């Protein structure tokens, strides 16, 4: 009778395909459809307890488990990289409970689960990008009570958010938000893009792929359909702009990708490398040393860097 999954004797015996039972999947699938129908609106769902801790991607995992099938190729990234420990752990989970084929290449993946990044490589129609969301409520800092924030969303009362951003402008001369930068979706719902750097915000706009967001702890699912307006909040005199680096990637030479700073010694030595490991590897494989821009929807969007 005892058949607990243990970290030592790992087995998928006794568990349904993709771990969740069918009723749970149906509940999540219905929530996903409503989420696509109301872009940017947070649909409450009966998140289940997962064998990974809350805050470690349980929302994203439940979404992925509800959409994924044997025909899929799954890519999992954390901080843009396929080989960070939590990405490995989640990939192992799906290999075990769904015998899913995994890949590190964006071009090969049909479902990509991510934490904190949008891949540099442009996505295409039919691909699904699943974001792990620790905290889905963009108004949490302004109205921590759900009972209040639900009302603000219901009546599109987003003035307080603009005021908060303007306080930054008054104090620093610019908006000092650099990740989890709030966006307006389809001109109606204020949405948290999850803690991706604002560098990635423009990629969400008019993306051909399906973007799904899951928060297990807060039990919310939301979505951005393909070809949907996703506008980063800003002001006429302080337009939204993304981060830039003086440096280029030390490996592939990219001057346009999001860079991680790596400390190389204890004497202040450091270098900058692409946070997106697949993008970096692809560039190195194809044309080592060049700094040509790989196609990214970022360039096409309004309000990006000047």
């Amino acid at each position, binding site marked *: 009778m005892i058949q607990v999954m243990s970290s030592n004797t790992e087995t998928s015996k006794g568990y349904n395909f993709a771990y969740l039972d*069918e009723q749970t999947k149906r509940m999540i699938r219905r929530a996903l459809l409503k989420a696509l129908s*109301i872009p940017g609106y947070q649909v*409450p769902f009966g998140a289940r307890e997962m064998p990974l801790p809350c805050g470690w991607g349980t929302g994203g995992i439940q979404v992925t488990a509800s*959409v994924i*099938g044997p025909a899929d190729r799954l890519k999992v990234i954390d901080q843009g990289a396929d080989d960070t420990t939590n990405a490995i752990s989640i990939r192992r989970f799906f290999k075990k409970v769904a015998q899913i084929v995994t890949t590190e290449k964006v071009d090969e993946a049909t479902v990509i689960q991510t934490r904190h990044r949008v891949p540099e490589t442009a996505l295409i129609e039919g691909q699904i990008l699943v974001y792990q969301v620790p905290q889905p409520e963009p108004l949490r800092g302004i109205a921590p009570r759900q009972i209040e924030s639900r009302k603000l969303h219901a009546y599109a009362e987003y003035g307080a958010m603009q005021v908060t951003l303007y306080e930054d402008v008054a104090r620093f001369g610019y908006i000092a938000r650099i990740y989890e930068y709030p966006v307006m979706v389809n001109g*109606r719902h204020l949405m948290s893009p999850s803690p991706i750097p604002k560098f990635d915000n423009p990629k969400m706009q008019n993306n051909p792929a399906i973007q799904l967001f899951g928060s297990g702890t807060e039990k919310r699912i939301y979505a951005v359909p*393909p070809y949907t307006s996703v506008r980063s909040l800003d002001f006429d005199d302080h337009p939204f702009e993304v981060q830039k680096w003086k440096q280029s990637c030390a490996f592939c030479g990219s001057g346009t990708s999001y860079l991680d700073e790596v400390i190389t010694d204890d004497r202040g030595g450091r270098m900058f490398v692409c946070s997106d490991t697949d993008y970096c590897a692809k560039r190195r494989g194809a044309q080592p040393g060049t700094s040509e821009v790989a196609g990214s929807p970022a360039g096409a969007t309004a309000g990006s860097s000047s």
Partner: protein
Amino acid sequence: MTVVAAMSDIHSGFRDPVLDSQDAFRTVLSCNAYPGRTFTLSRSVDGPSPFCIATAALCLTLLDFETLVWLEDEVRTDKIVDWLTFHCGSPLTKDHREAQFAIVANAQSIPSLLEFRTGEIESPELSSTLIVQVPSLVDGPVTRWSGPGIRDSICPRIGGLSAQLWLDREMTRELYPRGLDVFFTSGSSIVGLPRTTNVEF
């Protein structure tokens, strides 16, 4: 009739309930994500008449004991009720105003769309989803759709719908983010029409 479960006169469901519904869901997800495009199911299911493959697959994929279902007269047959009860376990209602899912085969004879659940202002997701089976997805009048999920515009030709239905739907659009989400089915194909889509004639 093919494989039969337990009771001999109930039509079968998915051959592989887990993987067939996953496959069907991905089609449905695409329909909702890319409104106006026709997506065709890759797996078949032999539902009770007059359900087409797509209508039956949508039921098996989305309905269960948690979904309150309303059946339009033409599909409120013993065979269908037994099939839905057996495979989905869904509670049925005779009041279309409280239904989470409404299943329609004759769109000409349904109550005004304005009477279906459009959700609550703080919970717009608590709204009806309509599964409307139509004679054709290709030779109805030309309509021009735009909105989220559609690059520029797309021109579906859904048949079997009344002008009044389109007018009523246009009225529900003013309630956004409340509203109605529709799937049109025919044969094994589906077209999604979420509440965000703007339809012009």
